[in-house]
């Protein structure tokens, strides 16, 4: 446990010190700020627009941080040969992986926390109401989504080269909503074999859109928070897929000769 904590701490410190997170946050905040400078006729009651733009940019930026941080952890260790002294210590490969993963998740949480602080401060400054319960659930589901994205990026970086891993993880994240609508739309037109394949796709590939509460957070005043049962099911879903990806990563890691 101590080994995992130390490795995670190292990844977090590196992530925080490298200033990439701050750059991502700064660019995102500038982008949102640029949108807010547009003259929208000085009209009241347009907070949905601000909420949607801010949450969209922040979600993308957090996901980009998670994907890049996670995908480059292991390849860089091999490339710089820093993995060899690490593995010479009494640290198992599982502990090493979990430590790296925990560090990435902490760095992602750090990034998300900055964003959410900016979002809350901006919303309150504009005098808009925040549906706190829904907002809290949004943040939690973002973390669950980022856990899946990070573990998936870990596994992809073990079986593909770094660029391909980042690209595939980013595409899966960005296209989650589109793919979800697409599969339900084309399903009735497919043959039996096609339907089996599509069903397999739905259950093999994590459906990230089910963690996206941003639309309800945007139109928040009229939507109640999710029930505890729904939150528990989503947590279990994330746990299953994240564990699966960690398992696959470990399998690929064990097959690598050191």
């Amino acid at each position, binding site marked *: 446990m101590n080994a995992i904590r130390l490795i995670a701490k190292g990844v977090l410190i590196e992530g925080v010190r490298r200033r990439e997170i701050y750059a991502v946050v700064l660019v995102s905040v500038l982008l949102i700020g640029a949108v807010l400078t547009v003259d929208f*006729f000085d009209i009241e009651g*347009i907070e949905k627009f601000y909420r949607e733009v801010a949450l969209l940019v922040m979600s993308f930026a957090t996901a980009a941080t998670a994907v890049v941080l996670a995908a480059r952890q292991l390849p860089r260790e091999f490339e710089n040969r820093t993995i060899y002294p690490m593995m010479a210590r009494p640290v198992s490969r599982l502990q090493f992986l979990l430590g790296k993963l925990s560090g990435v998740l902490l760095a992602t949480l750090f990034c998300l926390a900055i964003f959410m602080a900016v979002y809350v401060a901006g919303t309150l400054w504009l005098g808009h109401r925040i549906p706190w319960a829904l907002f809290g659930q949004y943040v939690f589901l973002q973390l669950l989504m980022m856990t899946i994205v990070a573990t998936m990026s870990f596994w992809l970086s073990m079986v593909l080269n770094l660029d391909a891993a980042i690209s595939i993880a980013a595409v899966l994240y960005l296209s989650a909503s589109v793919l979800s609508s697409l599969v*339900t739309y084309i399903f009735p037109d497919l043959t039996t074999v096609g339907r089996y394949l599509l069903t397999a796709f739905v259950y093999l590939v994590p459906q990230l859109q089910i963690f996206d509460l941003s639309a309800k957070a945007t139109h928040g005043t009229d939507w109640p928070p999710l029930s505890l049962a729904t939150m528990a099911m989503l947590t279990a879903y994330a746990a299953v897929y994240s564990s699966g990806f960690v398992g696959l990563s470990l399998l690929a890691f064990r097959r690598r000769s050191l």
Partner: protein
Amino acid sequence: MNGAYWRIPSLAAFLLLPLLAGRVRPNDYEASRRDSQTAIERRNRTAIAAILGGVRTSMADMMFVKTEVYMHNGVAYMPHLNMDALSQRGEVVADDHDGHDDHDEEAYDPEFPPTVIPTAGKDFRGIVGELERRVRPWDDPDRPHIHTSGIELLPWYRMMTISDPTNVRAYQIGAWWLKGPKPEEALGFLKEGIANNPRAFQLPYLAGQIAAKLAKGENGETDSARTAEAWEFFDAATALMMKERPEGYDRDHPENFPGWSEYKEEDARGAVRFAVYFERDHGSRDAAIEKAVRYSEFFGGDGVLDRLARRLENED
């Protein structure tokens, strides 16, 4: 290949360039996706527009999807709102089935269109579909829709017109929502639209209506500058419309006139009627009669204008 073979046609093309350049009219340029509103909406009614939602390449197309989602409080239905009615009268009404791209043809009801996320009975994804229905804004499509205010959409229309200043429909709908709370800003927005779309008669027509409303002061006094402005808008709208409306347009067979629609026809008739009313109220009776007769002839007969002309002729 011997170089002489391609040098001759190249030289000929070069020498012909001044002739070709003489036919170029830069102001006639229209972006590739700026085809008629009818064509845009036909494209947007396809399922792919609903599926791709916000990632459509064109911001102008995104407006259509955003409008549908915002008006339903975040619930994504298959696109079904009548954008003509929205831009013309500010009405949020369902469209008929024409041009829809649905799987379930028999079950389609324009008042109860299907949701993008299907109902449990039609969703093969089991628990995944159930979770998506709980997490994303979703409502049973068999329940009556709740339409929210369009004010919240105004920033999107502003963004659309910034990204695509030739989007006449965005100026129209945006000005419709804006003219209630902020008529001055609505007029300014339309003036920007007119500057960017000098051939769209609908914009000066709507601008004329807003200016005419602003011309009437709260205490019954008339603002002469505003009146003159409204007059200019109506004249401009009428002149542009008369240039654009296809000759011999037949309301019984609108399909024979692809560049024109019944909604445009209604706007066209509305523009000339407003021009005549305005002439009657702020100009001379004789000029109003002359305009009513002339415009009615232009349309091959218009009951409203004919009645107005008769009534004016019978007045003392």
